[in-house]
């Protein structure tokens, strides 16, 4: 593993920022022959303020929703220039980095379009801190059920404003783009797993996608020193399955694989939820609801975190009459 850092000192992320840790490991895994494209989001605002960039790789900004387009444009240009002899032929990694708002909401169609362009090589990395964290912690489609954000407070009339269940982004990318060769979930708390996944994504060719869950002390409400612990709890409680799909082959990795094999038991989701102030207004019934949803994912889905199709399809109530 390389000693050199390509995402180095000079950034201004919050203490305990797991997204910054993700970038550090992604850059390390990618190495120097890389072009990085960063969409608007925390990791733009905090890392690339003029004079203080943390990137020791060529880096360019793209618009909030532009990641998919930017990686396609970059990869296509490199291909054209090399084929025409305008640039020397060599392997250059193209990595587009977007937050959950830019990737899963605003930029979804551009990311989806990009993942169908199989003749270009690039990785789209979605760092997911479950909110629009650099604009004051607002709700996105990736914000979990019940979580407090500035767009989803708990009020006197309505206790849970974020009533929508978190979107299953990596699964959607994997299932919706049948020719994509590599999709994975990861997190900074398991850096070796993350490092290996980035290496695989960049080596396999074509469009690839990695989704990381990044605990955010500011947005989630916990002491920054517990970032890794919170991340690990997301996996141990089964809320965040770690997996990879390589050439169409699904595999749970790390702790998630050990849960699936029965080697370890899933912890109750309450252990994860009770550690964060964004869930402080939830009642036991709410937590029980979340637990049931997670149980269902592990016990009934064809593949946890990926295919929400139950093994036994229930006969619809309406069809009985």
């Amino acid at each position: 593993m390389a000693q050199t850092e390509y995402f180095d000192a000079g950034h201004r992320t919050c203490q305990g920022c797991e997204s910054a840790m993700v970038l550090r490991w992604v850059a390390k895994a990618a190495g120097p022959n890389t072009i990085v494209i960063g969409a608007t989001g925390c990791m733009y605002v905090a890392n690339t303020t003029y004079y203080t960039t943390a990137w020791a790789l060529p880096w360019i900004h793209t618009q909030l929703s532009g990641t998919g387009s930017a990686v396609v444009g970059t990869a296509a240009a490199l291909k054209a220039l090399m084929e025409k002899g305008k640039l020397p032929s060599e392997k250059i990694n193209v990595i587009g980095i977007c937050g959950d708002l830019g990737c899963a909401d605003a930029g979804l169609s551009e990311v989806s379009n990009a993942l169908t362009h199989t003749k270009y090589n690039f990785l789209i990395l979605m760092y997911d801190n479950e909110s629009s964290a650099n604009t004051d912690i607002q709700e996105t489609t990736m914000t979990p059920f019940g979580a407090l954000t500035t767009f989803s407070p708990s009020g006197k009339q309505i206790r849970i404003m974020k009533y929508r269940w978190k979107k299953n982004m990596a699964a959607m990318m994997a299932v919706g783009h049948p020719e994509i060769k590599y999709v994975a979930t990861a997190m900074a708390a398991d850096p070796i797993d993350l490092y290996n996944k980035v290496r695989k994504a960049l080596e396999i060719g074509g469009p690839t996608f990695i989704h990381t869950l990044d605990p955010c002390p500011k947005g989630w409400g916990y002491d920054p020193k517990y970032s890794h612990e919170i991340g690990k709890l997301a996996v141990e409680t089964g809320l965040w399955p770690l997996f990879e799909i390589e050439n169409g082959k699904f595999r749970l990795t790390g702790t998630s694989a050990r849960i699936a094999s029965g080697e370890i038991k899933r912890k109750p989701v309450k252990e994860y939820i009770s550690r964060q102030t964004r869930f402080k207004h939830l009642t036991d019934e709410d937590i029980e609801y979340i637990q049931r949803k997670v149980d269902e994912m592990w016990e009934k889905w064809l593949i946890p975190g990926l295919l929400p199709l139950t093994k036994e399809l229930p006969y619809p109530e309406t069809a009985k009459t």
Partner: protein
Amino acid sequence: MVLKGDEDVEVVGTGTDAVAYALMLADVDVTSAYPIRPYGGVMQTVARLIADGYMKAEYIVAAHEHDQFEIVKHASAVGARTFVGSSGVGWLLAIEAIVATSTDRYPVVALIGNRALDDPGAYGVEHNDALMVRDVGWLLTWVDAAQEALDTTLIAYRVAEDPRIMLPVGISMDGAFLTHSEHAFKIPPKSKVQKFLPPYDLGNRKLHPSNVISVAPQVNEDWVTELRKQMDEAMKNARKVIEEAYRDFAKIFGRDYGNPFVEPYMVEDADVVMIGMGTVSKPIKEAVRRLRARGEKVGFLRIRWFRPFPTEDIIRYLSGVKVAAVVDRDYSFGSPFDGGAVFTEIRSALYEAEHRPLMMNFIGGLGGREITYNDAINMFNMALDAARKGKVEQRVIWYGVRE
């Protein structure tokens, strides 16, 4: 299609075909396509040129216009010559990427197949779509013939990629009247194009692992003023660079457009001059010819480059006339004197003139309604009447509007 040798090849095609041939000659590396009329024709022809092996470029079908414009912005950042475009509301869907392309200083060339904005279901030509980017640092030019479209596309790359400029260029073309009508035009040989258009070179701004730079880091309030000022310098430089480009173009290709910024037509001794952009030139020029035959001292001034604005030419050609009548295929709601955008700009330019003409404004041809030779004659008659009376009774006339 025969494209060998060093001779011009004469073909018949649409205005968008002409642009497509220019892209082939300019050896564009990356294009992105998304369907919308009347722009779409150019990408259909480019696709065919690529499929038939006449052109080698990465041809990317995008998810929508924002996608399209982001793709080429980033292709341009790593050193690829790029082409993109759209029409009407499609062009505006891309506005965020359009703005970032000029502020990040990438010399993208785009075709705007002019189209009305939009509801209820207006698909014909209006110029408001292109004019919406008047103030964001794009060079804007209007063409009125297929040959000019081809030539201007080559000139656009030369100007945009000049190290003194590094700003994108939008080439506007009237929807249907030019995009879809067929004309005879000449395709010049590649050998001449290579003499005219040097390879695209980003220099030390090229994004590549051998050149570790950060492009467009957040500057906030610290540096925005300075960056805008640099864009302003580039836009001002463009007047000189455009002149050089047309001069070299005439030398190499043998087609001399005279004044690059405006096309004066029988304006020298004119009392009344009509001003317009795009294909409205055709009926107006015909009207000028017929009125001249009757002894009326009329002329026409076609604005070719709208950004940078040809202020000096406007003063030179219009300050001596009795009436300057602007035909706007656009409208600027609530503008000073409630007129069109071109009228407002020309009025502003003439403020510095020693002799200011009377000014009239015809709002016409909106949504693709035709402006005929008879319409041009009617407009001239109204302007001549004002010239005789020495006063304008109605400053802004919505021409041909049904009450």
